[in-house]
């Protein structure tokens, strides 16, 4: 195993107050290391997405801390946190969230453009990543012209183009058929995961469990244990 990429300590998160208070995370402790592909699984409402958001610097916990590569991310200012997400984390959203009015290359280039890289250089880099995810020759197409699997690959290319250390994937197979979902995760496991990268996947699709290094099970906001470790 590599060094620690993400460490969450005593994480608590609740929504609402008084009688409406709902505990989403209860005393969660976990760590993910470089070279790992960690799955967080559990039934709906168990707190998977909340945990993912807290770990990636999107949702502030009510108590506890998250350190990424040794940096306490919830001690950062809002702007620093935005920079942290932009530079350290790649996101693959459940519904892809591609921009329908931008072509695939422009969609992929977004993180580089946000980093204020030159437009043409960003597009050139994006095209390289489209080739890596097997979408060579699709750079000028708009997302509507792509299949669900292809759109997911575009989303992965967008998450990867900035070469983040950590890749966050939220229900990556939810919008795909079984075979496509399996192929996508196989590709991620085979081509994206390496010893300098940590991938955290939230899913409840058991068909892709085979690619997990570890599977952390959540129930009622708690980590209920490790279902399986090491592929």
């Amino acid at each position: 195993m590599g060094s620690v990429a993400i460490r969450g300590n005593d994480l608590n998160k609740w929504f609402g107050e008084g009688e409406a208070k709902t505990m989403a995370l209860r005393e969660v402790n976990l760590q993910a290391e470089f070279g790992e592909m960690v799955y967080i699984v559990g039934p709906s409402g168990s707190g998977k997405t909340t945990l993912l958001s807290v770990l990636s610097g999107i949702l502030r916990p009510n108590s506890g801390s998250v350190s990424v590569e040794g940096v306490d991310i919830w001690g950062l200012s809002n702007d620093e946190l935005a920079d942290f997400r932009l530079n350290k984390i790649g996101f693959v959203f459940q519904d892809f969230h591609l921009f329908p009015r931008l072509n695939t290359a422009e969609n992929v280039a977004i993180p580089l453009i946000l980093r204020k890289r030159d437009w043409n250089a960003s597009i050139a880099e994006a095209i390289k990543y489209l080739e890596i995810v097997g979408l060579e020759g699709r750079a000028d197409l708009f997302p509507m012209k792509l299949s669900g699997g292809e759109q997911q690959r575009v989303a992965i290319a967008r998450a990867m183009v900035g070469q983040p250390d950590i890749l966050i994937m939220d229900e990556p197979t939810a919008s795909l058929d079984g075979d496509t979902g399996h192929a996508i995760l196989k590709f991620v496991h085979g081509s994206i995961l390496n010893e300098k990268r940590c991938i955290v996947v939230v899913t409840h699709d058991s068909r892709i469990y085979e690619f997990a290094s570890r599977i952390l099970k959540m129930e009622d906001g708690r980590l209920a244990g490790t279902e399986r470790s090491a592929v």
Partner: protein
Amino acid sequence: MVGILKLAFKLLVNDKAKFSALIVGITFAVFLMMFITSMFFGVLNHASSTVINIGASIWVMDPAVQTVSNSVGMPNYVLDAVRSMQGVKYAVPLYSSGALVKLPDGSYQTVTVVGLDDISLFGRPALVSGKIEDIYAENGFLVVDDAEIAKLEYPKLGSEFELNDHRVVVVGLAKVSTSGLYGTPTLYTTYTRAVQYLPNPRFTISYVLVEPKSQADVQRIKQEVTSLGYLALTKEEFMKRTADFFVYQTGGGTNMLIMTLVSFIVGLSISGQTFYTFILENLERFGALKAIGTKNRELVGMILFQVGFTAFIGYGLGVGICTVLMWLARLRLPSYAAMETYANLVIAFVMVLIITAISSYAGVRRVLKIEPFDIFRG
């Protein structure tokens, strides 16, 4: 930031339907606004044409006068009294009245007759043909060669018509900077001849035109004229008095305000609603951008750029269409009373700024409120 703005630009213009709707909304609003205000400013300008063309610094008149075309005769002593005031460099009488001329074909045409001071001819127009001294010749009149000259059957030097059974001989054709509002041809002659040829009430001086020795004397002259029971106004004040009459006494100002408000509401409803829909449709993507690492100020910058760009294009198109239509109208109606001024360009621009500010405010609020966590939650 250039890349982010380019991103915002592509998001905007690639949504052709919404971009077109936004442009149409703002263009239409600007066009309406420009058109109404141009008409209004044109009318106001033409209403003050005599003041502009004569060009005197101070105008002395009866206090009942509301517009330059509706003068009230003053007795001769007013002219003498004004000439004797301290600070007056010179003062001359001016006659201005409507009249009917009988054309060679027997038809009658309403005209405006301006009688200039016999000695100085102060306020005379620039001649395009003829000699100014011929105005002293028997029955000598100048005709203003503007869009209305057609109503006098395009007279040449030497052409004749009748004015109150007096012979009128055209001895010069003149140009003035501004034509009159009422579409009547204008004739210039000497004050004495004007008074002789036209039926008049007891007092015949329409205005006393005054040139002060210095700007510092203006206030004193005005006070002394007031003490005589008359009114002295600077050129600008007289134009404003005339404009105020049309704005407040004729309903013209109210109409313009209503039409301006209508164009504002039309522009705001089309542009505001379309832009807000555009933001709503892209809300999740803006949320995704936030999650990826875009700062709030960058998102606000993107939205302001999109609104600003649309406003700029819409403003340009609106002003352009208005200008072209007014140009086309002038081809058909040379005295078409519409005028684009810096004032109405600025008014339309401010209106566009308000429309875009309101449109973007709603959009910015929604984008700032969206939490990246909502993107994860779907």
